[in-house]
């Protein structure tokens, strides 16, 4: 429904239900005989980071694709807040070797008219030097940042990230999750992401949904990490790993291991 006075920012709308960006209700999906999702519910609110975890083949990507509207569920409902702008970071990107494509040109596909936004976003993500390189020649970690940049160029209200940290070493992963968390705070966008390991996303997530065809358990990360259903799926060792990572960070390291100067905001 278009607002009568459209120059008002949407966030000022007093409607209480306005905080919900995305909601799926009782989603079921089968591929042939195989039931992939059974009665799954999921809500992402403005500024909230929701993480989907679960073993391989648990239906995480399918759920995300349904939430994005890329595929249809067999039953259940999908709600997007009106004219929802989404930024999506897919799990795999395959560029045909016959297709020449620089990083800059790849990003311009998302937003052709705002060259300044493209260079600014590249700089924000510390990949300004990649612009002229061929997309096929950048490293795994760099590619993930390029994909994140493309998602951000839509000025999304909702960021959907399918295993954003794949192919990155542990230190880089922690840094990337930190970055995602900062972006969510700065831009006030909701985040729905898939991750394999709870302990790494712990500090950067508000709600964890543990998925194995159905929702096994969900809630705050501290709560999920001790939930019997979670321990069943990932084993007790997973929750022990967790303890190491729950300390409060009072300083940060950058990619080379140097301690970063504290920021004022």
């Amino acid at each position, binding site marked *: 429904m278009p607002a009568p006075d459209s120059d008002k920012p949407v966030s000022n709308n007093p409607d209480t239900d306005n905080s919900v960006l995305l909601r799926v209700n009782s989603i079921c999906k089968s591929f042939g005989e195989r039931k992939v999702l059974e009665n799954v519910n999921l809500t992402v609110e403005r500024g909230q980071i929701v993480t989907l975890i679960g073993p391989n083949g648990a239906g995480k990507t399918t759920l995300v694709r349904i939430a994005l509207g890329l595929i249809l569920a067999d039953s259940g409902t999908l709600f997007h807040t009106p004219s929802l702008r989404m930024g999506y970071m897919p799990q795999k990107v395959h560029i*045909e070797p016959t297709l020449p494509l620089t990083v800059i040109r790849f990003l311009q596909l*998302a937003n052709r008219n705002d060259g300044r936004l493209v260079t600014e976003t590249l700089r924000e993500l510390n990949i300004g030097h990649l612009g002229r390189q061929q997309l096929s020649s950048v490293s795994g970690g760099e590619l993930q940042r390029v994909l994140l940049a493309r998602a951000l160029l839509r000025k999304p209200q909702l960021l959907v990230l399918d295993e954003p940290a794949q192919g990155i070493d542990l230190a880089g992963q922690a840094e990337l999750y930190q970055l995602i968390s900062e972006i969510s705070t700065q831009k006030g966008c909701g985040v729905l992401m898939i991750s394999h390991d709870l302990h790494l996303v712990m500090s950067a997530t508000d709600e964890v949904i543990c998925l194995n065809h159905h929702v096994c358990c969900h809630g705050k990360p501290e709560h999920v990490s001790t939930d019997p259903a979670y321990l069943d799926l990932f084993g007790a060792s997973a929750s022990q790993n967790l303890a190491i990572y729950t300390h409060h960070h009072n300083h940060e390291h950058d990619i080379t291991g140097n301690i970063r100067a504290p920021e004022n905001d």
Partner: protein
Amino acid sequence: MIESITALLTTDFVLYALAAGVALALVAGPLGSFIVWRRMSYFGDTLAHSALLGIAIGLISGSNPQLSIIISCLLFAFILTVLDRKTSVSTDTLLGILAHSSLALGIVVLSLADSVRVDLEAYLFGALLTISSVDLVWILAVVFLVAVVLYTFWNELVSITVHAELAEIEGTNINRLNLILVMLIALTIAVSMKIVGVLLVTSLLIIPPAAARQLAETPEQMAVKASCIGVLSVVLGLGSAFYFNLPVGPTIVVIATLIFLALYFFQGTQKSRSNTG
């Protein structure tokens, strides 16, 4: 020699051939790039083969041959797109069946029509020098249309080619754009029938972009350079066909292939030199 060139250039049929060939090469660059990127060359082949059936039906029913080729190409493109979405047969097999069955059917229908004498070779290998002013108008009109549509939807077409799902989430209507691209290919193949013929049409679409790949950093560079290589092939091909009395269509394709090979090996030596040095 200069006299003979000016003599050639003032002959109507040579000018027509040149204009048609250059116009086609210009639009074949960007369009052919999509065929290369999206691995659609077999699709192009199938459309070209099916065009012969269109020619046959057009001749028998006595309707405008250009129009009947265009309509049959568009129809086949549409049928292929729908079948590809609906059937469980792999695209490869589907294209193989349709390409050869329509070519065979076309030849059978042509031979049934005793009343019309058809120069089959002209349709199979092209007859650029027999292009009439009416043909030229058709070709120029279609090329213009294809160019305008390509230009309008360029960014979106590149976007769905790079990553369809990202494009969809960014608000691009993928099915519509796929259909537009397929129709553009069908139109272009239909009008280029007379220039290089059923069997060689796709080569004019894919060889120049393949050659340009070595020289390009972005999709746009590849498209533009493919156009240039295509135009060069047409001009050199026409020239040498005259000079050495060769069949025009095949000569153009041979020239394009030579350019491709030259660039390929030149680039290869460049790379190995920079690696060792």
